[in-house]
């Protein structure tokens, strides 16, 4: 049974179509990436998922039932633009937010303390929010979304503004939660960040779904015709007929081949040309490349004048 199921939902604000005919399903124990450039309708879709707005048409199902507010106690949401009460103490704040999610005070207190320990911010507990660094505040918001042990965790741009160490900690925590059977929805325009995390994805552009499916299955749809190599010596071999296009960043070349089979002949040519190859890797296309390629094929792309604000 999918945790979230959107069926053909549509939302129009005034004259602006925010979401059009979006269908997706998120299974328990998976990470789902909702991807797309800024303003493509990610946040609008999430808001309909958790009843902040009602779709003009289409259906929303949570936990296998039509949307009901009682289900919201099983949803943890980290909004893209988020805040905390500045003057409130961290612990009081977490308890308050936990209670709003249906926890009683003592449970909320116990879990808050445990989570602060786990997220390495135990020393902040008695402080006021305004005294904390931005990264710390972000961790507190992260905890607030997880305190009530939700089965569906929605993270809208969770890593924005976070340093690599803390981003790593967050990611690790989310992977543990997935292992515990929770469904996690990532919404982001930074495709590289979720590339290795997500089990399946949906890419939306201008409110419409342009690509969706399992990560492996989507990647397999695209040929492994990319090579990244590090080398010293002559670069004349890049003019090889097997090379469709290339970028040479002084010794690190990103190459697109005419066919996946051409990799071996290119390596031969490089060695024959006298280049010293340190690394030669045949790669699958990145999510970002897939996204750009897919979007370029849509009528909306032409409408937008050939621009994607990734």
């Amino acid at each position: 049974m999918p945790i979230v199921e959107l069926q053909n939902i549509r939302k129009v604000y005034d004259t602006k179509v925010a979401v059009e005919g979006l269908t997706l399903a998120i299974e328990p124990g998976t990470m789902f990436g909702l991807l797309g450039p800024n303003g493509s309708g990610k946040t609008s879709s999430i808001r309909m998922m958790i009843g902040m707005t009602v779709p003009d048409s289409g259906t929303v199902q949570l936990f296998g039932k039509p949307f009901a507010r009682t289900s919201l106690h099983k949803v943890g949401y980290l909004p893209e633009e988020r805040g905390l009460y500045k003057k409130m103490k961290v612990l009081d704040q977490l308890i308050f937010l936990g209670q709003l999610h249906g926890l009683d005070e003592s449970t909320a207190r116990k879990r808050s303390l445990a989570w602060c320990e786990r997220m390495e911010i135990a020393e902040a507990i008695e402080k006021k929010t305004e005294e904390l660094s931005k990264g710390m505040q972000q961790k507190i918001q992260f905890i607030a979304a997880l305190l009530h042990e939700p089965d569906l965790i929605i993270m809208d741009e969770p890593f924005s503004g976070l340093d690599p160490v803390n981003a790593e900690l967050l990611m690790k925590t989310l992977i543990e939660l997935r292992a515990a059977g929770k469904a996690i929805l990532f919404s982001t325009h930074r495709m590289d960040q979720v590339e290795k995390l997500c089990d399946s994805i949906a890419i939306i552009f201008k409110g419409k779904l342009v690509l969706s499916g399992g990560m492996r299955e989507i990647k397999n749809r695209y040929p492994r015709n990319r090579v990244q190599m590090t080398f010293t010596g002559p670069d004349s071999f890049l003019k090889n007929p097997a090379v469709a296009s290339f970028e040479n960043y002084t010794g690190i070349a990103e190459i697109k081949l005419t066919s996946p089979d051409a990799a071996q002949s290119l390596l031969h040519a490089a060695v024959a040309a006298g280049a010293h190859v340190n690394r030669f890797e045949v790669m699958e296309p990145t999510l970002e490349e897939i996204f750009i390629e897919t979007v370029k094929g849509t009528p909306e792309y032409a409408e937008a004048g050939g621009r994607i604000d990734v």
Partner: protein
Amino acid sequence: MSSAITNTFLIARREYLERVRAKSFLVMTVLIPALMGAAIFGIALVNRNQKSAQHVAVLSDDPAFAANIQAELAAADTANKPVVDIYPLHDASARANLDTQLKSKGSDLDGYLVVTPSSTSGQRPIFQWVPRVTSDVITRGRVADASRGALIRQKLAASGMSAPQIDDLLASVDLSAGNGKSDHAGAAVASAWAMYFLMYFIILFYGMNVARSIIEEKTSRIFEVLLATIKPEEMLAGKVIGVGSVGLTQVGIWLALAVGYAKFSTAGLDIHMLPSAGQCGLFALFFLLGFLLYASLAAALGAMNNSEQELQQMQIFLMLPLIFSSMIIFNVITSPDGVVAKAASFFPFTAPLIMYTRVIVGKPGAAAVAGSLAILVATIAIVLWLASRIYRVGILMYGKKPNLPEILRWLKYS
């Protein structure tokens, strides 16, 4: 549903505790009565030093008439008996002396009155008032009244009445004879004004606080987190109740202190503003509903605006109905069952003050009071609902200030 009540309660409790625990609450609770007391004391001090008709001179050749003016001036201010000097009219040196006195800072002479007999007999004399300060209208008025009184006394004496007879005739009339001790109308006016000032204060401070806290949540964007579990209407209702309770707590502390002071003070202040227990209950009820209504309106203003500056401009919309109520209150007191009073006691934004006033001075009837209360409760619900509508759509389209047509259109969205 009970979850709605739980959520509203949680929001209200947070607002209440955060505010009451803040240092500013304690400071305000102490500082405002202190400042008010200082202001009242200061005004009393200024007024005590302000002396009108304290030293007046009369130039007249008729000593009996001048003595009458002297007596009338003394009767007008029994607390501070004024000094009235009398000089003969044609004493040029006396007049010159008075003129120098008026110019001198060392003298306390307020002015002098020249009474010249008319050329034709039987006609009024001619009065000329020469003041130290032309704008001292109080002294001028008193001197004019005293002169008129002296004229009447002179005529009555001439017609053969004795001085005690004249005093008896000219004594002021007491209308309250036989009414007993409690002055009904006075108490009504006092309690209506008390309600007006309490409401004005609490709406100005705490009504705007409701609006401000909504805007604060919009700027900090914590509402995004909150709205993931609660409905906007629960949030707004929680804010109105929570912030309102802070205001009521503060007013409660002040009232308790005032009552305590009155009880133990040897000065024996005579506070009989609230005539009966029933009216006392109605006062509390109308005050509470009135505050809730205005606080809901403030919530709507908060929902409409994205910054404090924008809110400031709209503050007048909150105060206007209240100011209007205070302007028609005299009309209501003098004619409690008139058209204006009746209409205003059912118009929700004036109802709290006006219906309460009518209850005290008139006989609106239980059905009318109940009707007015029902209208208030219904309006609070409607205003809160509208506010949450505006709020919900407003935050989803943040970034720009809505205009009226947009707000009207938002009301249709879900």
